[in-house]
């Protein structure tokens, strides 16, 4: 008997027992769909975290200065020395603080950052109208400001704020540029900031020295070596004192988070994989029941000339078809479920083709592996015994 006939027979017997076949497949359906759904949630989370961290810039090193003893900061000129370190493309020192901002009847507190023109390229944060801060603004401690799009909306609604003035802690600042809308990154919203020249900020925020520096490396690959050089330079400045500075490396952070979320994906997938295995045992169970239930049928088949191989093939194909169909339905359900999760929750989901292929082939494999025992039992039945059974 050829494979085609075996398949036809297996299909007939599956269709002849619709409810049971469906219930048998249910284990595989749930297994495959949960593998796909859970892994898609894991991968979706990974990629959204990656995206957020990439927004911070993977070629950037963020230095925070705690200092040593009475020296709790670096001067502007000292910071500019970093520019001379090999591998450094740009240095963007930042002085930050808060100020009460007033214009007309609106009055609220905003975060203020004192910056240099290097900030624009380092943070990849440009103006949508007006101009950026210039070196000359810093040189003359100009009272000019760039405002974020949310700040603009708060004070000026939809009209153009460029050229208007804002009262910050009672001091008038002229708005020279409106920043583009960047949205939220891992460090919070970028759109409710006000940027002013760093030299102005030093006085305005009464903050001597610089405690926060963003250093851009020449390339992402050079971040590591640049970080080492920067550490050496900072150690020289602070005489290797403990906790005198921290350097945050977005790439490093990303690697850590990635390995965490990958572990999460693996754990979720593993649990779902166990349910797939349980589904396979369900198939084996039903097939075993089916063999003892169909002993007489097997006997008749053998009496009229079925060979061991024919019976073996029929039962294995039956279990494989059950698990294969279950796998296909599971894939469909998995796609549906991850789309639903993405729709109704804040989680991102990403169905990967490789997981679909892996879980489907695993379900097929389970059908074959767990079909072997019952099929073998059926094939081994002696015809006279099988015919005598009712």
């Amino acid at each position, binding site marked *: *008997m*050829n494979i085609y*006939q075996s398949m036809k027979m297996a299909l*007939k*017997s599956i269709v*002849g027992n619709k409810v049971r076949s469906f219930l048998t497949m249910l284990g595989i359906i749930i297994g495959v769909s949960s593998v796909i759904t859970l892994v898609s949630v894991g991968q979706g989370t990974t990629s959204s975290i990656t995206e957020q961290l990439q927004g911070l810039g993977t070629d950037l090193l963020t230095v925070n200065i705690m200092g040593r003893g009475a020296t709790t900061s670096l001067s502007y000129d000292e910071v500019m020395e970093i520019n001379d370190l090999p591998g450094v493309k740009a240095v963007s020192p930042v002085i930050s603080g808060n100020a009460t901002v007033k214009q007309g009847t609106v009055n609220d507190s905003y975060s203020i950052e004192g910056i240099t023109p290097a900030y624009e390229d380092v943070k990849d944060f440009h103006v949508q109208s007006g101009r950026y801060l210039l070196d000359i603004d810093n040189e003359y401690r100009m009272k000019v400001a760039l405002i974020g799009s949310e700040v603009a909306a708060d004070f000026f609604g939809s009209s153009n704020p460029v050229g208007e003035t804002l009262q910050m802690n009672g001091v008038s600042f002229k708005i020279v540029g409106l920043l583009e809308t960047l949205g939220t990154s891992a460090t919070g919203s970028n759109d409710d900031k006000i940027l002013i020249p760093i030299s102005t900020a030093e006085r305005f925020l009464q903050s001597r020295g610089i405690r926060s520096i963003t250093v851009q490396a020449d390339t992402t690959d050079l971040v590591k070596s640049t970080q080492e050089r920067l550490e050496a330079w900072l150690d020289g400045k602070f005489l290797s004192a403990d906790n005198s500075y921290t350097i945050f490396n977005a790439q490093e952070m990303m690697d850590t988070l990635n390995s965490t979320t990958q572990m999460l994906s693996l754990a979720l997938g593993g649990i779902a994989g166990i349910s797939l295995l349980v589904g396979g045992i369900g198939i084996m169970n039903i097939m075993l029941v089916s063999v003892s239930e169909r002993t*007489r*049928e097997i*006997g*008749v*088949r*053998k*009496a*009229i*000339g*079925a*060979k*061991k*191989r*024919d019976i073996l093939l029929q039962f294995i194909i039956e279990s494989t078809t059950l698990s294969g169909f279950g796998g296909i339905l599971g894939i469909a359900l998995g796609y549906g479920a991850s789309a639903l999760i993405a729709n109704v929750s804040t989680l991102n989901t990403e169905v990967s083709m490789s997981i679909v292929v892996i879980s489907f082939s695993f379900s097929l494999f389970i059908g074959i592996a767990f079909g072997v025992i019952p099929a073998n039992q059926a094939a081994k039945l*002696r*015809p*006279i015994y099988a*015919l005598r059974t009712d």
Partner: protein
Amino acid sequence: MTITARLQQPLIQVENLGHGYWMAGEMVPVLRNISLNIYHGEFVAIIGPSGSGKTTLMNMLGCLDIANEGSYRLDGLDIRKLSDNKLAQIRNEKIGFIFQQYNLLPKLSAFENVELPLIYRNMAHKERKRAAENSLRMVGLADRMHNRPSALSGGQQQRVAIARAIAGDPPMLLADEPTGALDSKTGAEVMIKMQELNQLGHTIIIITHDLTIAEQAKRIIRIMDGEIVEDRGSGI
């Protein structure tokens, strides 16, 4: 061997066949010293009360089981030397079974049931269809071909079983109480069908305990306590 020479050879050649089952450490003999020859075209009834060993003998003759002692040649082949797969092939090609309980597969239609032995024989689709339809026509069920067994009467089901037995044109039909589950009228119809098949040249062996059925055969072999006690009439 020419075909005539082969036809003159006995289809079944049993010599000193003996068989028993082990039960609680003791050998319980079921068949003893059975020797018989059955030739092509015979119509034989094997009769005996229940427990006489006739079903065991049928299992031996039908290659469903192998005897402990003695030899059995079917159509010139020594059955004792064959593997399970080879036995399956012999059952498929040389023997048509007709059971008391019909033993049709309930999920398959009459046609599919009849077709089944031909599928196991690897017959091509077209040829198979023709053979199955022919044999269903022969038992007068051409119009019920696509009914499942559950939609057929007992007599019709037994006729489907006969159609299945003859579909592959085996030299021997082996019937175990073929009328046992039927009322006397349909039973008689089935027996008439068997007579017709015998006239068409099929060798028929009926196992029964019913004397009125046995009387319709040309040769009667009586078994008692595992031994042949009577062998009368000529099968041809």
